[in-house]
């Protein structure tokens, strides 16, 4: 009996001290893969968020308090993501969480935030389902500032068929959820333009030989390859095409901008095209400032994943604006503020002018991403006219 009383006393005192500590800062959770195959995206996203938080804190923080990042490596594993979500909510008591690179991790983890009424901003994961996982719920605590797969698949199909006039696309997708859902979205988008893929091929993560898949596309007479997969396997496709002495354009989801694709396919990957919300080019003063600040803080002259860095940076500013407007760290009030944001947030990707509403939790609309092109180890704008002049900043149309 004595011992249990003692234990309660210790628990109570630690709870008190952590509460006292928490009052000085506003804790924000950060969940992403910082190791493993998607780490280039996770690390860039984290660095982007940190950069924004540092700027916000330097300018006096939010509600007179400093923002504090609690970062956790979810290893791109669904179960680890779930553990982290519970830890961030219950132990760290974060007021909101930024992150998720992998759609699967987001899907598995978001449930806990939804139940705890704590907002989440998905800044990289693209799976269409993420922002409307609970259509019947009274309130939705999940937001996104990345281009969803619905947007991307339509863009890919339109670029290939309408803009470049290809008639016989072949789809190559990996066997994960990401690849297979993307493949379905792509097929649907093509069907709307009365185009049927001449071949639809599949491969596993870790496959080392893509000869069979690429040969099938070649023999079916494909004039373009549309992809939905991640870096290393995409590089294997480019390399298999080079080996078979067959070169048709590769157009695919934004993962074609991953460093692991660009670096491992080398010259074979040149010319690959993908939708990008941000291309590492100083097309506006804000972007120039961001790129310089990033390299000053983290070194190098090329971001591992510019899209993730920019979206990470923007998500932190969006959240800060919402907390300021809510004048509270209560999850419900922050959610309401996000859905009705009064201040314009000038981000790197775009200027967010009322990015969300009660029914629309997607900050990135179909007009925002442009096509990037792999050239000499970097991603450059595929159609420079798309980002020239006043088209450099593309703003979500008012609904």
């Amino acid at each position, binding site marked *: 009996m004595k011992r249990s009383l003692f234990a309660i006393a210790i628990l109570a005192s630690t709870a008190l001290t952590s509460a006292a500590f928490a009052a000085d800062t506003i804790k924000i959770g950060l969940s992403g893969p910082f*190791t*493993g*195959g998607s*780490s*280039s995206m996770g690390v860039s996203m984290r660095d982007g968020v940190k950069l924004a938080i540092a700027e916000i804190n330097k300018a006096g923080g939010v509600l007179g308090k400093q923002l504090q990042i609690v970062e956790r490596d979810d290893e791109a594993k669904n179960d680890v993501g779930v553990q982290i979500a519970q830890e961030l909510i219950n132990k760290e008591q974060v007021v909101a969480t930024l992150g998720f690179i992998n759609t699967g991790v987001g899907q598995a983890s978001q449930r806990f935030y939804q139940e705890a009424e704590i907002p989440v901003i998905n800044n990289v994961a693209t799976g269409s389902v993420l922002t409307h996982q609970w259509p019947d719920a009274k309130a939705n605590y999940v937001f996104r500032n990345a281009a969803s797969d619905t947007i991307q698949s339509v863009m890919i199909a339109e670029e290939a068929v309408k803009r470049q006039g290809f008639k016989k696309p072949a789809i190559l997708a990996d*066997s994960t959820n990401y690849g297979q859902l993307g493949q379905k979205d792509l097929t649907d988008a093509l069907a709307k333009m009365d185009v049927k893929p001449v071949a639809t*091929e*599949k*491969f*596993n993560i*870790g*496959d*080392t*030989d893509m*000869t*069979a*898949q690429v*040969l*099938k596309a070649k*023999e079916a007479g494909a004039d373009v390859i549309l992809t939905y997969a991640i*870096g*290393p396997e995409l*590089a*294997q496709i480019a*390399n298999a095409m*080079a*080996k*078979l*002495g067959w070169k048709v354009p590769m157009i695919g989801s934004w993962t074609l901008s991953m460093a*692991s694709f660009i*670096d*491992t396919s*080398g010259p074979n990957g040149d010319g690959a095209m993908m939708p990008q919300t941000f291309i590492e080019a100083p097309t506006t003063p804000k972007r120039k400032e961001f790129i310089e600040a990033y390299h000053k803080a983290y070194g190098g002259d090329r971001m591992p994943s510019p899209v993730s860095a920019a979206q990470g940076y923007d998500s932190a500013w969006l959240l800060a604006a919402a907390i300021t407007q809510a004048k509270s760290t209560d999850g419900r009030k922050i959610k309401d503020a996000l859905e009705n944001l009064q201040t314009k947030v000038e981000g790197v990707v775009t200027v967010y002018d009322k990015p969300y509403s009660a029914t629309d939790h997607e900050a990135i609309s179909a007009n925002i991403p442009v096509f990037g092109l792999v050239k000499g180890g970097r991603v450059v704008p595929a159609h420079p006219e798309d980002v020239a002049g006043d088209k450099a900043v593309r703003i979500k149309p008012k609904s």
Partner: protein
Amino acid sequence: MNILAQLIVSGVVVGMIYGVIAFGYQLTFATSKTLNFGQGEALMLGALVGLTTINFLIGQQIGAFAAYLLMLPVVLAFGLMQGAVVEFLGVRQAIRTKSEAGWIMATIALGIIFKNLAENIWGRDALRFPSPLPEAALSFAGVRIQPMEICIVLGALALMIAVEIFNRRSIYGKAVVATANDRDAAGLMGINTRLVITFSYALSSMAAAFAGVLVAPVTLTGATMGAVLGLKAFAVAIIGGLSSGVGVVVGGLILGITENLTGYYISTGYKDVPGLVLLLLVLTFKPSGLFGSAAIKKV
């Protein structure tokens, strides 16, 4: 016709890789009736050590081809050492206590440890391995093959032939045969069977490490590269038979070629299925493998 030939050629290349790894399984099984389930990790470690070495050599202004040749002895020596470590830590104790399953758990555990170690040293991204030969494919009557792929086939055959000759001609080889036939009797004849087993593990990991640096230039190098290859090679070892050197080569070729043919003529989604069906068929009808001699265990 060209397509069939192309698929078979690519299948042969992949199959030879499976074959070399399976050859490693067969080496240790012959002497100790145990296997290193971390064989895929031995391959991965070999490839990563090779990558660090070759990058260092290229940094010293040595050409890619010369650097690759200079790197080979380093990798082979590393493989020998790594195999000996696996035997010492994971297998020796199990054999001494005549444990039926101890070595299985121990070699799997060591494999996981090696993988984590590699993740900490080399990171978890897939890395590009510099190719010692030009990457442009050669064309033979419409069939295209990269020079490195020819190297894989020749290198794999050379290694297996060298080890076989060593085993058959040298005095060590006689000790292996004696140990394989009857460990206790061999021990009574003055053969240090423990050393023979250690050495067979060393050779086995050396074969895997060699396979690693052979396959690395045409794929990517990384901590997870060994998992799938090790598993496929295990299937090959079962199909071909764990007691036959020829068996693993033929088993590897069968698996590599069926994978490619299924991928093309049936569906790429079912690429891995026929190999596993074949595995089940062999286990049902000829458990010792297509080329294995039936082992009769007298009790």
